[in-house]
């Protein structure tokens, strides 16, 4: 029983994490974890700067289909 509850909790946690990644909520966290950030090769963007930068990149190439 406890094992099932643990599995359910783990599943829900993973689902929530995946959901946040899918909809872009966790994009800044991914950016902070990225190699470039760790390498310190360029200035780390603030969350607001990253948000605008990410949108400008996403909407400058085909990202929605017919």
């Amino acid at each position, binding site marked *: 029983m406890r094992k099932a509850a643990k599995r359910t909790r*783990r599943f829900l946690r*993973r689902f929530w*994490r*995946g*959901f*946040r*990644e*899918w*909809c*872009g*909520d*966790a*994009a*800044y*966290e*991914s*950016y*902070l*974890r*990225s*190699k*470039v*950030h760790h390498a310190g090769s360029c200035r780390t963007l*603030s*969350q*607001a700067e*990253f*948000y*605008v*930068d*990410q*949108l*400008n*990149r*996403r*909407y*400058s*190439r*085909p*990202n*929605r*289909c*017919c």
Partner: protein
Amino acid sequence: MKRAFSFVVWLAVALLGAGALGAIAIHRGEPLNAMWFVIAALCCYLVAFRLYSAFVAAKVLALDDTRATPAERHDDGRDFVPTNKWVLFGHHFAAIAGPGPLVGPTLAAQFGYLPGTLWLIVGAAFGGCVQDFVILFCSIRRDGKSLGQMAREEVSRRGGIIAQLAVLAIIIILLGVIALVVVNALRASPWATFTISMTLPIALLLGVYLRFLRPGKVVEASVIGLAFVLFVVVAGRWVAESPSWAHVFTLGGVSLAIAIIIYGYIASVLPVWLLLAPRDYLIAFIKAGAIFSLAAGILFVRPDVLMPPLTRFVDGTGPVFAGKIFPFCFITIACGAISGFHSLISSGTTPKMILRESQARFIGYGAMLLESFVGVMAMVAACAMTPGVYFAINSPAGIVGHTAEAAATTISSWGYHIDAQTMTQLAQSVGEQTLLNRTGGAPSLAVGMAQIFSSTIGGGRLLGIWYHFAIMFEALFVLTVLDAGTRVGRFMIHEMGGRLWKPLARTNWLPAVLICSAVIVGSWGYFLYQGVIDPLGGINSLWPLFGIANQLLAAVALVVATTILMKMGRLRWLWVTVIPMLALIIITMTSSYQKILSPNPRIGFLSGANDLAAQIAGGIVPAARIAETHRLMFNLRLDAVVTSILVVMILLLIVEALVQWYGILSRRHEAVLHESPYIATRWAPDFSGAGHGTVVGDAVGDD
């Protein structure tokens, strides 16, 4: 033992699928239950994924999981982001699933349920999925390069320019056509027009929230936006019932077209965070919810399919659009079976985020199967309607007349009985003034969806709410593609214009932004205007034009894929891309020829223009309408020129590719493959994405 069990299970799935397909194909007489469609589609998809995609992955592409993908090599947290395969599947599907697989099958239902359903399943399994999968693989091996860049490097420099022009052409035609779908959905509908208008201030509000108040907090902003949107769907009824407000929001075709053109221009000029992105976040949730609800509703209600397997309109005399079942059924279904536009997504964001080559099979092939399933659901929703109602909604006034009585008489004479009262009552029950002549597919799909939803929740009382929820979903869906597509088109104009005058290439210089936005919006706006003033409803000429452009782009993608496979030495398996490529070339060339040169004025652009000229010469056209008729003639000739240009472009690319193929096969020149060099992955076999508790280079599993 395990192997034998697996064999038995897959044999059972295959037999079940074959049985269901057989039932759909052979059944005559009594209405067929929609469950047969669901079973046939799901079983075929499972078998195709299990066998055919595995064959393509192992033998044709020889996917290599020891090779580092672009996401690992260039991980920058911005473009190149290692992403869990389920999350990436969601991203990829959200990007490829547009209004096409909903509208196309709805329009193709005029031939009956059989041809469209078969093409959706077979075309996807052997064409669309293969294209998406192979192009994704090719792009992964080339650091996420775009289709145009791959065409330039692997086929020829001219090939790259042709691919780029083809993309721009398809974007312009696509945007014009889908904008027409929205206009026809909102025409003379104060409820729907109010609801869609209100999504603008909601999106602006969310834009400010996400930019200044809670940067990047997409989930909470979307939940707030969703609550507002659901409220305005309900509030639309109060507006429609108030004579003064209803008057304000009751707009004709031309007014709506102008409003959408202005909207497109503003969305292209404004910063992306203010309008475009928040609208996209809003629709992401609504889209997922509506598609899931439609599938669940069909499974729950299990409606009977009332449309016959084949209608009398297979002979090319259809009222929704003219043309015989071959090639026009294939052109009309478009994205639900194979879409050239998908190759832009498969060579865009997805290859930069994928963890392993083997995941290209699940994401590239699998997501397209799901899109095809959405198309089958749309086909079921359209065919579950009484055929008379379907034709009354989707036929233009030029064919069935303006009044319910005239439409009922004409449609009943085709053998699909309907009386005028049925249409009047249906319009009242969904809160519309009329549902007659609402071409474009969106209103009939909304009626089909509303009937399925209301059979699950709320009954007839909520039919109006469900109908307008479906219209809101379709219109918002289309407008998101419209503003995102306009922006991408604007960037392409910047790039091309910059070659003529350098300052035009600056995407952040206001005069350049204003000029390039005007060029792209003016281009698709003209097609939209042309569709709105067309007495045959616009869809008759524009949807096939869009289908041709889209399928030609798919042919371009398959030509590039074939060239790459040839250079890789996979000559034995070339048929995997060559067969769908040849099928598409035959379909698009036949339909282009017919659209340009058919002597039938409803099919051929030139004969249509000549017919109008003869009417003017014969004194049939009243003096007051002569100027308008001249405009129609110009539009038809313009469509003929556009189709010809598309055909010439693809023929040039094929000649370029043939020269290249001859050179490789005859060993006149070396097959130079422009792949990125092999670098072994440092990721552990169980690595499932940067956000999933694992560290690059460490064998740390999920928590």
